[in-house]
């Protein structure tokens, strides 16, 4: 006996397959990570004598554009999963490809934003606001990069699994999808907190 049960099918009394429970647990821990950082933001801001208005230092239109990019990528992520559910592998490839491209676009825009800051000699050590800005968006960017690596794997070599274990592959896409939506959600909190408030 060495086949692990419930890798694909759901367990009746819990209603989930293993990896689905796993990703939710992982996301719970991510919530705690970003929760701690958001609390840091609140505590330092409350204690600060003066706090710059985000828009005075950051470029709101560019931030808005990037928010739209990420939200769109979440939508295409869902479409790539439903394509698999409908047995349409070619469409899956297209949508996942678009998701990856959008994620890359987000990073390119972000790095231009960073570049502009550095050019004007705005570094994290300048103020608590910039310290928070760079730390939080940097950590978020790392999550995006991690996502891109995994998505690209499933778009390329990892997609071979579709031929042998279609159900399992579909589950995997659902799982990374959940992760991707989470990363998106983090940005949806970050954007107003840093750019607008």
């Amino acid at each position: 006996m060495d086949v692990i049960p419930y890798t694909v099918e759901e367990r009746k009394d819990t209603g989930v397959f293993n990896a689905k429970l796993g990703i939710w647990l992982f996301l719970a821990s991510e919530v705690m990570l970003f929760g701690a950082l958001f609390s840091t933001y609140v505590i330092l801001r409350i204690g600060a004598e003066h706090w710059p208005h985000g828009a005075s230092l950051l470029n709101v239109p560019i931030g808005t554009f990037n928010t739209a990019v990420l939200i769109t990528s979440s939508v295409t992520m869902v479409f790539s999963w439903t394509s698999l559910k409908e047995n349409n592998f070619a469409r899956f490839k297209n949508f996942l490809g678009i998701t990856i491209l959008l994620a890359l676009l987000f990073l390119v825009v972000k790095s231009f934003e960073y570049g502009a800051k550095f050019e004007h000699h705005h570094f994290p050590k300048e103020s608590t606001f910039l310290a928070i800005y760079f730390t939080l968006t940097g950590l978020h960017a790392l999550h995006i990069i991690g996502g891109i690596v995994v998505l690209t794997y499933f778009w390329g070599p990892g997609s071979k699994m579709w031929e042998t274990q279609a159900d399992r592959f579909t589950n995997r896409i659902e799982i990374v999808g959940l992760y991707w939506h989470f990363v998106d959600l983090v940005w949806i909190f970050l954007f107003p907190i840093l750019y607008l408030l």
Partner: protein
Amino acid sequence: MSNEHHEHKLPFWQKYLFSTDHKTIGIQYGVTSLSFLLFGFFLMMLMRWQLAYPEQAIPFIGKFFGEDRAPGGVMVPTFYNELGAMHGTIMVFLGVVPMGVGCFGNLIVPLQLGAPDMAFPKLNMASYWVFLVGGLTMLVSFFLPGGAANSGWTAYPPLANFATIGQTVWILGMVFLITSSLLGAVNFLTTIIQLRAEGLTFMRLPFFVWGQLITSLLLLLAFPPLEAAGILQLMDRVAHTSFFLPSGLLVSGQPLEVSGGGSVLLWQHLFWFLGHPEVYVILLPAIGIVTEILANNIRKPLWGYKTMVYSVIFLGFMSFIVWAHHMYLTGMGTAISAFFQATTMIISIPSVIVLTCLAISLWGGSIRFNIPMLFTLAFIPMFAMGGLTGLPLGLAAPDVYLHDTYYVIGHFHYVVAPGVIFALFAGIYYWFPKFTGRKMNDLLGHLHFWPTLVLMNCIFFPMLLQGLAGVSRRLYDGGATYAHAQGVLHMNEFVSISAWILGLAQIPFILNLLWSMVKPKNVDSDNPWQSTTLEWQTPTPPGHGNFKELPVVYRGPYEYSVPGASEDFTPQNIKDIK
């Protein structure tokens, strides 16, 4: 009686090195963390020299530490700080927790669940290797200029912000360890929730599994805030931000060239948000181990199983809202102190309930006094000692006096050393036959147990007294230059000598462990302790996939001496009592 026909033919490196089998990984964790425990112990033995004989050259080995650390063999203060910080870090994060969770959790949980392996075997392997990298990172940091981290295992700013490069590497090491424990926690939770055998409901889980379940939940949710704190401290150290540096801070009389606006208390909150749950991460696997052994050796049902389960669940939740009892002296305000002292008093209730259930279980049992049981029986009063001495620390008023004294050191060492470490020893003696087909030697076991029990008390009881006299912890000279310490100063030598003999008292154990691995097999039953739980219903040692066929569970975990049964134990997978 091994199930060789189930064994795949795997190449050596896949079978023993990069294995995905939970048993191999458990043993890897065990060997690694026992080595780290020993290493942490050596660091402590060096510290004890300095405390007993301040300003005197360390005999024999003193000259090997170099001119920076011990000119002429005499330890300098920063070296003491380095030893202290790394002793704490190594013992907690590289010794006790990986032993309780990584080793025992991995070895026993899937077996007790009737599962073929963990839910995510590859993640399991990754978790071990990331842990090892984290551990090695910590070790390598000793060779950096300025040595390893020396700001205590709590790494408080602003001190840690200005510490030598070792502190940066300490943070990196912690990031690896946190990642490893995250992978482990996800895996354990999923395994316990998803891979329970048919019929194994939550209220039929052995208590050990409950302990691991709550432990993993704490690891999952409490560690990320420390990771966040680590990231912020890394930014402070590398990018020169001021997350933990307030405005107007003077260092050596000079104002700092930083933007300021940070908060030192912020670090303490984030750290202790992990730090307190971490106490239960250390404790719960140990409680799980002693419960299994106790239930097995009283030969009757455990008293209050359900009460114990509800207690640890409650304890798990409460442990997230007591953290600031470590911070009464920081001036965070009396209202906040009052809140945290109330929650602290509340959380002591479930721990007392669990201990009481264990103690009452002994009543009227026909107790078998084997080596695992001796350690278990010693665990109960020793842990109780640690717990009770903690109460005054949980109350803000007495803590004003006791905070940061040797009383605190004595208190928590009672919990972790004669408490948790005893449970870990008990677990090794108890489960050894399952994985090797050999019982460890009894005589050597006695030679290990009795001196260890006595010496532990010789070491830690005087620390409580020194603390009551007001001697501070983390003192390089053990209090020699303080007037109020003079009355209790003579204890230092006694404590240190006891600690070194304690080191000698571990030799029978080490010999026993090594010898028992190679001696001829002396156990021919798969269930030598006549136990009821599923790990004993496997072949010895369990092959790849654990069970010949997946078991079905019909009863609770501790059905000993069931009336009408022909034997005094009824395993969980027995359907009808004969």
